[in-house]
């Protein structure tokens, strides 16, 4: 049987990511030679997993930066990660298996694929997030599992906020943070109002989106021209 691979096999040039890029995400700054060796060993033995919280923190920082640098390889049968036609964000299941903090993982993909890209239409304020089972055979009945939806309002300044009514509950989210509202419904009705900003080109409105194991993710970090 072919040798086992791991998450770091799916990137090019992991060992060439500038150490400063990775260190910025770590709570404690490690010895740089030790960190460089740690990363190189992950490339050498990509199937290995972290045991400690700190090792997981380092792995997550590597994945985060590798995604941002655009070094993710194309996997067989994998769809484009950010499909602008269907407004779907596909996360290969290998990441889901390796990074158990799903919300953090989604934020990594948002940062890598949605934040800096040139927005071509207002409909790109909403993305369905899907875990794609790329030939792994983990999901029995479906190759893809919808786990939620990302909403990305755009604010005029850092004083803005958005209020949402989801499943009859009201939420207020300030500019600058990412929030998750749990909802497992396939079709989730949301009424929203954006103060000092817009979503889908309007200040208020109602939409139907997909829920899932994660739910509704509101990325309220964006400021116009920021």
């Amino acid at each position, binding site marked *: 049987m072919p040798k086992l691979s791991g998450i770091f096999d799916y990137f090019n040039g992991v060992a*060439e990511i500038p150490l400063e890029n990775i260190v910025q995400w770590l709570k404690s700054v490690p010895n740089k030679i030790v960190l460089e060796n740690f990363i190189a060993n992950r*490339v050498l033995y990509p199937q290995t*997993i972290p045991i400690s919280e700190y090792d997981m923190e380092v792995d997550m920082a590597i994945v985060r930066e590798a995604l941002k640098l655009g070094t993710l390889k194309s996997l067989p049968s994998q769809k484009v990660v950010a499909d602008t036609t269907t407004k779907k964000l596909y996360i290969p299941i290998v990441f889901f298996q390796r990074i*158990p903090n799903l919300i953090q993982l989604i934020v990594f993909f948002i940062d890598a694929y949605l934040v800096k890209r040139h927005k071509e239409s207002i409909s790109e304020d909403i993305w369905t997030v899907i875990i794609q089972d790329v030939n792994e055979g983990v999901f029995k009945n479906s190759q893809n599992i919808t786990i939620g939806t990302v909403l990305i309002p755009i604010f005029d300044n850092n004083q803005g906020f958005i209020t949402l009514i989801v499943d009859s509950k009201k939420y207020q989210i300030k500019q600058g943070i990412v929030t998750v509202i749990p909802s497992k419904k396939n079709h989730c009705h949301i009424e929203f109002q954006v103060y000092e900003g817009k979503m889908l080109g309007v200040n208020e409105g109602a939409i139907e989106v997909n829920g899932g194991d994660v739910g509704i993710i509101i990325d309220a970090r964006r400021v116009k021209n920021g």
Partner: protein
Amino acid sequence: MVNSQGLLVNKRIRIIPNIIRRVRRVLQGHGNINVQVGEEVNPPDIIAQYTISGGYRRFNLADMLSCDPYEAIKYLQRQVGQRIYKGEVLAYKPNMLLQGKKLIVSPMDGVIDFYDENTGELSVSFLPKTVELPAAVYGIVEMVDSSRGQIVIRTQVTDIVGILGTGKSRDGILEMIGKRGDLINASSISAKYSERVLAGGSLVYSDGLTSAISLGVRGIIVGGINAKDYKSMTGGVLEIPLKIGRDVGISVIATEGFGSIPMGEDVYEILQGHNGKFVIIDGNRTKVTLPTFDSNSMHRIKTTQLPSLAQEPLVEAVKNVEAVEVEKGQRVRVIAPPFMGEQGIVLAIDQRPTLLLSGINDWLITIETKSRKFKVPHANVEIIG
């Protein structure tokens, strides 16, 4: 990783014992080959002789004699084109008014190449040296290539396959320079290791590598190397295996990975048993070849056929890693911290996964080493041997 059969881990072949294959003995200069195809050879047999030039040295004779360049040649005790030997008087300037005598002794055996009367520079070439090339192995000569100065011998060897390496194929006498966990730096390497292949230790520092290169060490086999140093020897990128061979003047093989990782017991014991004997190290192929020194191997060498030389691939496709199911009783090595580099036997395999502090669920296996027992995630081991 789990499949329908059980827990899968990679199995890595690190040692390939007693295989029949070909080794090349290469002349490092112009010379004569003494053997023919089909001839049996033993390790001490001289199969070729060749001449090597040692280069040259230059020094400013005028400065050394404290006189003008056009004057210094008067004090030279040999003419251009003549030989001079180490310790002989190269130049002598007698007592002068306000200056004492000056005596310059030759530091080497050589030939006076030229003297530049404008600059005062003297060039002395090292005397050519004749070197005898021993077979170094038991075997049968399969090919003699006089134009390229190569002799191919079919012989019996044990191959050690490392994890990463760099440097072309070199050979020499193996010298163990440390225990499995020692750190190798410049002070570990002395001039007596010139032309040797060194082995041992958990990490070789960059100053150790630099010192080894300048002292003419042929190769180093060690547990680990810092990623930064490896990248500096391989053109700045981490490429395993190397797609294009690199060479910085020494062959280096790490048997475990990056950083300080004690050399595996399996490899260390084999190398220790070969201490003081001839080895071939190929860093770009991460392979160490240990010829058998058992004269009884000759029968097997004679009776084993190999594919013809023309069919031999330029690059061997060594498939030494594949995924297999892990089972109790297998010998494994740990490939991630903690316990990275340790080797032991699988005592038990958990029936249910455990939630680790990292948040990942994995099946733990219990390993027993020579000194302790511990549990590690199955994803962090490889089967060996």
